[in-house]
């Protein structure tokens, strides 16, 4: 028994693993590779830029220098209150990327767990759980998010006050973060529906396969089987879904901010920057151009990367290549 298992391991090491294969295929996909590099560059400059470069504060106003054109001091120009657009775009990127990442994580956790349980337990429980998803699907998503984020606005205000009083943190750092939390929860809590369905289908497929039977006959508990044996096999699907979900969620954040529900002034996300820019496009087009450019680049990169990952992780599609 021990001998055969060691044989197996060495076989896998020698052979080409799924992950390795996937990476090789991804590397060969030039679009995906370029997207990855652009994406990494944007993430790095948004998060490290303000730390490393001597930049102005994003909310620092200079009313004597309003709507200036791009110059050496202000590479993207300044906005209607004389704030440096470059810095605002970087900070806006932080918020947009953060919303994308956090909200995706929330929907990931809910969606995977829900789908796993529904698929594995099956029967009546499955039917009930999936009907709930159907019902939620039938509701208009954006309306739901709006209602939801409005209804947790008041509790989040109370929480802000409490945090400020308890931990003695300055209000202007707590308040913007707290104003994002409703957004995180709202988008995340309602964005898991598709994922739950995907995971459920996969789980049903997997749970009747031999390795699960084997695990079951060894007397393992359902939780172990679910999370140790089935979940890892879903990884590919989930990764692909996630990469493709992030742009959707960032877009949704932009839509909500565009509607005035997302990030609160004076802080900005790419969504709010684009809105402000769109209003003023005749007067100072750069206010629209730069945030829109970065936003589109990020979204396109994420989409191409997602496509690449899907091709790379799907053995069937790879055979065709």
């Amino acid at each position, binding site marked *: 028994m021990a001998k055969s298992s060691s044989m197996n391991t060495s076989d896998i090491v020698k052979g080409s693993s799924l992950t390795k294969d996937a990476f090789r295929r991804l590397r060969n996909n030039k679009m995906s590779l370029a997207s990855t590099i652009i994406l990494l560059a944007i993430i790095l400059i948004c998060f490290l830029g303000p730390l490393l470069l001597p930049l102005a504060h994003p909310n620092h106003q200079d009313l004597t220098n309003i709507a200036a054109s791009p110059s050496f001091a202000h590479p993207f120009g300044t906005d209607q*209150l004389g704030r440096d657009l470059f810095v605002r775009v970087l900070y806006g990127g932080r918020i947009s990327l953060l919303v994308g990442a956090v909200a995706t994580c929330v929907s990931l956790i809910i969606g995977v767990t829900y789908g796993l349980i529904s698929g594995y337990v099956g029967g009546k429980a499955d039917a009930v759980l999936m009907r709930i998803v159907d019902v939620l699907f039938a509701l208009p998503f954006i309306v739901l998010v709006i209602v939801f984020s409005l209804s947790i606005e008041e509790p989040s205000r109370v929480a802000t006050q409490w945090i400020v009083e308890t931990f003695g943190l*300055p209000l202007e750092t707590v308040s913007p973060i707290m104003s994002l939390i409703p957004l995180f929860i709202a988008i995340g809590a309602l964005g898991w529906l598709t994922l739950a369905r995907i995971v459920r289908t996969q789980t049903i497929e997997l749970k009747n396969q031999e390795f699960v039977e084997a695990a079951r006959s060894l007397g393992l508990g359902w939780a172990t089987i679910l999370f140790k044996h089935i979940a890892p096999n879903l990884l590919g699907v989930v990764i692909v879904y996630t990469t493709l979900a992030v742009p959707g969620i960032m*877009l949704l954040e932009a839509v909500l901010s565009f509607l*005035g529900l997302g990030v609160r002034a004076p802080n900005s996300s790419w969504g709010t920057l684009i809105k402000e820019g769109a209003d*003023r496009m005749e007067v100072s087009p750069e206010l629209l151009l730069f945030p829109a450019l970065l936003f589109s680049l990020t979204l396109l990169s994420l989409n191409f990367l997602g496509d690449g990952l899907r091709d790379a992780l799907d053995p069937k599609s790879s055979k065709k290549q």
Partner: protein
Amino acid sequence: MRRNANKLFSPIILGILSLFCFVFNSCDRQSSVEKADKEDILLVGNNSEIQSLDPHIASSVADFKVIHSLFEGLLRGDNERDDLYHPGVASRWEMSDDAREWTFYLNSNIKWSDGKNLTAYDFEYAYHRLLHPQFGGRYADMLYVIKGAEQYNKNNRPYFLLSDIPNVSFDWATLRDLDWDKIEKHLDDPYKIEGLSDKESDLIWATLRADRDQGYPDLWGSSSIGVKAVDAHTLKLTLNDPMPQLPLLILHCTWFPVPKHVIEDQGGMLSRAGKWSKPGSLVSNGPFVLKEHQFNNYLEVRKNPLYRLADEISLNGVRFLPIVNGFTETRMFFDNKLHITNNVPPEMIGYAKSKSPLEFCEDDYYVSIFYRINTQKAPLNDEKVRKALSLAIDRDSLVKDVVRGAGTASFGFTPCGAGYETPHQITFNPQLARQLLAEAGYPEGKGFPAIELLTTSREVQKTMAEAIQGMWKKHLNIHIDIRSCEWTAYKQAQNSMNYDLCSSSWSGDYFDPLTFLDLWTKISGNNNTGWSHPDYEALIARAKSTVKLEDRMKVLAEAESLMLSQMPVLPLYWSKRVYLKKPQVRHWNPLLLDNHLIEKVSLQEQSK
């Protein structure tokens, strides 16, 4: 399912966007304005979606503009000057020597748009309705100049019950100071009221009990109310104080008649949700009648063939477009979709001016832009905090850099004009501001609680709010959150005082400083700050009863000084009205109160 929903999501959004583009671009070879020119329809940008066309419920400028085109009061304003008036429904009028009693003689062949005759009873009905204590009209105080109107509106029943009793020696003046709340509680075990004889005391108890036993009937018929329709064509008004300027006051929509027969038919006098003011059932007497209302799209009125001067109206109709975003509105104007815009955002002034100097208009306007403060809520219930906030606003910079010169920095609340000298009471002094804030218990802004500044979704207000937020951060080291709401939600929050700071503006209803200072009395339906002061009430009352103009203005200035010394509001600037107007629009003249008589406007054909 593996090719998951997000792949679908983006095409859907793209699809919607391209559909929008398609709808907006494909419309015409012929622009909206050209089409409207041919049909003699005026396209006007009207700020926000209307809330109500009921003259007694409406309270925003957008509503009033439409109502002005639909209804006509006793008198009609002038197209060129704010201080002139002409016959309206009334063809002539008289006032008594002391300017307290006014008689209006109505034109006998005025008709509602459904063909019914308009009579003096419609006016009496309108004033009865607005003042009715159970109706809750926000603008009821506009009618308080009428004798007994205030008491009736506040449901001060003893005033009417006792003044109607014949042959008694006491009058209301001697009874005013009695504790009526206490008396009402003791109706069933009466005591002798001090200062009155037994007989008089008994009479009061008996009258009040009889009133209760009859189920508190409506007291409108009392002889102490100064509105009386003598016959179908004569309306008599009796005022509290001498008011030679009454004609200017009654140009406001709150004085307009409403169709009694329609309202009674559609839910009755007190129904606020009645359908009578909706398209299809709205009956009016003005130059135009309501034709169509598409929510968030447009509201169209058409010429009223039964209007008394219908032959003189050159327009066939007017379309009011509720466009909140000034950038969009300006863009639509240059795209030939509007004849007249409501405003040009400050940031576009330079652009609009250079693009089309002839279409650019900058008129003086009787308006004040300010922030209301909720004086009931900590920390803003502290006068020092309010003053500190005011002292830390650099208004000159606001006007120069944010409003781009389309206004004047406020040094008081009421704009100058109409013979009024606004007291200089507002300055920029960050040093003093910090000191006051420290005295209030927040040195260097430490521990200052989270407060919120409520604005509408207008982009000018948002920019302004961010600029002021920056100034407070810089000078006082305090952080204010900004919440921008859509108009209806904003108005609701303001009216229910569910805010901390609230960006506001007030444009004069008539050309007199009282229209601004009246706001801050306790009874004003538009006060919404929770602030009131007995001395202020007294000063305003004194100003109202002072006839001599100079003295009156002095008393008003004194009242304003008192108000500003407690800062229930943060005055910001006095705005100009900046808008765009197509050259073919004729007879649209600059007016301080912005009450344009749209029926006089004409569209001149352009030579091509």
